[in-house]
């Protein structure tokens, strides 16, 4: 652990990392995902991101002022929430839906609990879930990436327009096909490259994996929880395939479709709403993986992963408590062994 000493102001011993640096790392990788979204869907993807960030920051400032505290925009937490939200949605999503999701994320899931570091539920997951219930059709209608789309005025446009009415051909997302028990029409390699309809930031599988590696390398996200999460989801998908196909192929589709990978990296990686201890993290990740797959299998919605994450967020304290108990037992056992060795030496 790298620490610095500050003789002037308390706390005198400080860690190099703070909320701002952690959020900065996440923003860096989210910018990469926005670049990918821009390449697949055009300028509208970026505009949605800017709009969402603006709403989140405004809601955060308003909420902090209402709590009679000084706003800290520089901690960048509202920016991360704002950047995450549109990436989980299709590029065709109306701006008002993004605004509603952003307001709910900050004003309902974050500020009433005390702001940064005190929220029980992941704000982005809460905002997305609310929008998914309210605007199901818009949230789960995905345009084909890199497709010639017809603009509002009738002229041929490569991408969806930034403003104005949208007219596009929607594709069938693999999550929808899997939910029906059928086999998705897309090749696994195409899916890995992001060439399939889906949430604008969650389809670039290889890029998300690279982002995960970067975040793990930077110590922003611990490796144990994502590994446990993906491992549990992998096993579940292997044992209980949803459609009639090869088990490994089914696993591939399950892992690469929808928000599974994105949520595993960015929503479960949130240090505030997940357990603190290593052992608790692993247990939490594994249980979250199973719960997410159960929601996918038995849930009513096409994409219910955020609901599963919210449910898991509510159980975080339990995992922390169990982890503490286990560590307490281990410590006691070590002390007993040490004492017995001491007595033996004396004897």
């Amino acid at each position: 652990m790298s620490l610095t000493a500050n003789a002037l102001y308390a706390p005198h011993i400080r860690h190099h990392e703070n909320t701002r640096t952690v959020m900065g790392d996440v923003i860096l990788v989210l910018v990469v995902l926005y670049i990918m979204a821009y390449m697949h869907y055009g300028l509208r993807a970026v505009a949605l991101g800017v709009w969402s960030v603006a709403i989140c920051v405004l809601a955060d400032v308003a909420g902090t002022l209402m709590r009679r505290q000084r706003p800290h925009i520089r901690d960048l937490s509202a920016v991360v929430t704002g950047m995450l939200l549109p990436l989980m949605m299709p590029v065709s999503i109306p701006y008002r839906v993004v605004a509603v999701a952003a307001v709910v994320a900050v004003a309902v899931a974050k500020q009433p609990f005390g702001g940064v570091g005190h929220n029980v539920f992941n704000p982005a997951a809460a905002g997305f879930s609310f929008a998914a219930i309210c605007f199901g059709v818009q949230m789960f209608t995905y345009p084909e990436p890199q497709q010639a789309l017809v603009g509002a005025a009738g002229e041929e446009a490569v991408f969806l327009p930034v403003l104005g009415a949208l007219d596009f051909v929607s594709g069938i997302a693999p999550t929808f096909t899997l939910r029906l028990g059928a086999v998705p029409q897309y090749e696994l390699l195409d899916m890995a490259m992001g060439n399939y309809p889906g949430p604008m930031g969650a389809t670039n599988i290889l890029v998300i994996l690279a982002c995960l590696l970067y975040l793990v390398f930077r110590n922003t996200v611990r490796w144990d929880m994502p590994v446990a999460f993906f491992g549990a989801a992998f096993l579940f998908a292997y044992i209980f395939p949803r459609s009639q196909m090869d088990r490994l192929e089914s696993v591939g589709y399950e892992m690469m479709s929808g928000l599974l990978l994105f949520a595993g990296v960015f929503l479960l990686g949130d240090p505030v709403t997940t357990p603190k201890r290593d052992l608790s993290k692993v247990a939490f990740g594994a249980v979250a993986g199973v719960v997410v797959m159960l929601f996918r299998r038995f849930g009513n919605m096409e994409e219910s992963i955020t609901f599963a994450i919210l449910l898991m967020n509510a159980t975080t304290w339990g995992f922390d408590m169990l982890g503490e108990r286990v560590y307490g037992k281990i410590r006691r056992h070590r002390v007993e062994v040490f004492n017995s060795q001491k007595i033996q030496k004396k004897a």
Partner: protein
Amino acid sequence: MKFSTVKKYRRRHKLLGALLIRNPVLVLGLDLPFVIAAATSLKNAAAMAIQIFIIHTGTMLVGRVTCTKLHRWQAIVANVAAATFMMMVAQVLVVALFRGISNSLGMYLYLMAVNAMTVFQSSALPKNAKIWPVFTGALSNALGFALVVGVVALIREYFAFGSLWGISLPVLIKLPALAIPFAGFMLMGFLLAFTRFLNKRLLALSLLETARKEARYTKIHVDSVETIDL
């Protein structure tokens, strides 16, 4: 803080107390399921308010008698039986007033017979309780419930369905998720926070007023009193 000041403040805001300061739903957390799950339209809210008004007032008056004549456990059974009878009477009225309310409220129409506010308050009456305070207390509690259920239903019906009392109204953005119980929890949370803020504000105003009076009496400069944080 002087206790006499708080007492004076409570006496002055007696009616307000039932609505805000000692609201059975907002402060004591009684009858929450009806507000959270069933208050999705103004018609539902009105039906529930009428039912509570009849059930609660009637049962409290019965409870006034049972608390003196019977043992505590016997009184509870008698009160619940009285509440069930009141519910049947109220149901006849409510079903006649609001068509289709049975389908809309479902089991909550019948669950009102054992609502926490009535069961809790009727069984906790002291043996020497006087009839008039029991009656006015029951009335004000029913009014407090009606206020909360009305506000929640108004917000939910307008934003979830874009209508009020079944009449369609223009709405900027419809949020159907507000009709789901979890949104009821969220709304209740915000209402609680607002009530707390309002209570604090009222108490601070009352304190300021009292302090001003005392300052006038003792000829202390009033400027020093006005520094009380509101």
